């Protein structure tokens, strides 16, 4: 672990980060990630999650704006920031015909701060088969190898691009456990992109919703789950206006709504004299789906 920066420094700071591709425009993104935070970057395919992470890792140079990691500017020409960054992408550049163990030996010589002890503990914990060539490893084992390679030099910021996609539930749980433990000391931060929304419930403290290259909402997980509710009730009125409702289904007098402001909706229902009112909590992944489904207007209202 590096102790060369004061703890008050942001783990990552994106300032006006902009990247343009033909037919796609990311940003400008402004985002700060504090140490001890797990931020899930949520969005549909093509939203710009991978590009954002690649910019933060210094693999893509933005057109405008930039990123800092623990106070150090991210740029390919100035590799100092990489001491603090561990990155797991879909492809990680390993020597495919070498064994996992040989790749880790190579990384041990490449990366300053590499701890053999830390690497060995992670390998044992993940039960990673070190003797198998990388191109013969399952997807789960390749992800485990990438995680070991990304963590063994003790980075304080971990960037993960869809780390649990395609993993079986047992491996996924193990990976999420490790990520959760990493941030326990309050000095490490994790930013991971996902569209496996069930992961969010497990470890994310905060969520950032990305859509069409724009950050449409950033919010705390608890904050979201406190306000969103599914409400069913009986009411004869047909055209009923309810504050905060983002989805409304009705079969004769039976209504079911999803609201992003449970208190306001329930108060209105009381005023209208609704009967058989039942309120149920929603999981964070259900809320996330709703936000992604309803798009910008829900996100804006949330903001």
């Amino acid at each position, binding site marked *: 672990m590096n102790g060369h920066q004061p703890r008050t420094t942001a783990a990552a700071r994106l300032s006006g980060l902009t990247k343009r591709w033909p037919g796609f425009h990311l940003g400008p993104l402004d985002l700060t990630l504090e140490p001890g935070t797990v931020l899930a970057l949520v969005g549909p395919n093509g939203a710009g999650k991978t590009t954002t992470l690649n910019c933060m890792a210094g693999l893509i140079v933005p057109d405008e704006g930039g990123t800092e990691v623990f106070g150090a500017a991210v740029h*390919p020409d100035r590799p100092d920031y990489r001491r603090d960054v561990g990155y797991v992408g879909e492809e*990680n550049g390993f020597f495919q015909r070498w064994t996992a163990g040989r790749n880790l030996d190579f990384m041990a010589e490449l990366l300053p701060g590499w701890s053999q002890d830390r690497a060995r503990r992670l390998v044992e914990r993940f039960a990673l088969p070190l003797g198998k060539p990388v191109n013969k490893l399952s997807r789960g084992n390749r992800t485990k190898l990438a995680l070991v390679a990304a963590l063994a030099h003790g980075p304080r910021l971990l960037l993960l691009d869809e780390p649990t996609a395609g993993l079986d539930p047992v491996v996924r749980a193990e990976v999420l456990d490790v990520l959760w433990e990493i941030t326990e000391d309050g000095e490490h931060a994790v930013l991971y992109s996902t569209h496996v929304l069930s992961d969010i419930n497990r470890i994310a403290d905060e969520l950032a919703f990305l859509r069409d290259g724009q950050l449409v909402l950033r919010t705390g997980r608890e904050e979201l789950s406190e306000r969103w509710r599914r409400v069913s009730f009986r009411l004869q009125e047909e055209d009923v206006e309810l504050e905060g409702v983002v989805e409304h289904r009705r079969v004769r007098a039976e209504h079911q709504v999803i609201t992003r402001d449970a208190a306001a909706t329930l108060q209105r229902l009381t005023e209208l004299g609704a009967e058989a009112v039942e309120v149920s909590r929603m999981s964070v992944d259900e809320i996330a789906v709703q936000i992604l489904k309803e798009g910008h207007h829900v996100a804006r209202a949330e903001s």
Partner: protein
Amino acid sequence: MWHALRAELVYFRPWLLGGLGIAAGVGALLMGIIWFVPDADGTPGFLPEMFLIIAGMVVSFIAQSYRWEERRARLLLAGPLTPRQLAGVTVLLPACLVGLAALAALVKFGLFALVTGQLELANLGFIGAFTGEFLGYAQMGPLAQEATAARRQGRGRAAVLGWTVFVGAVLVLGATMVFRNAIQGYLGQLMVVVTAMAVTVWLYEGRTDFTR
């Protein structure tokens, strides 16, 4: 950078040894035909050595393709390497592979002289000429790759420069065939190799995308 280059050389060693083995086999077959077929005329000359050097060049193209496919830049950029150092690995790897193949050609030349007692010094000149030529062609792969990357990343002028140097280099390499074994030929080849390496490094440094 040297650590990464050494690792790449070790990684591609089986391909190089395999390529040299195939080239040596073809060369031996050729020598066998010339020596043992009653109607055959002449000596194998420099051809077995040339096959060995060609094998080095072919392996350098294979290596370039695998490094691209395996997205090696991603791995190396996890460490403290700058784009210039990454580019250094990219241009030095083919040079080393062709250089090692040329070394194998020299060993073959020496062994042949020892076994037969014939020292054909002219062949030594051909080994030098072919080494220069194939070192030049081996650099065309990385140069074309970076010129293509520049175009894809919207760096139009850099791409035009890259492709101009590519075409010019191929023309000069073709012209050096005329001056093979002469100082003009060696100088032309040296100019091509150095220019191609320098332009490739410059194009690589200007990249805005290092995901491959």
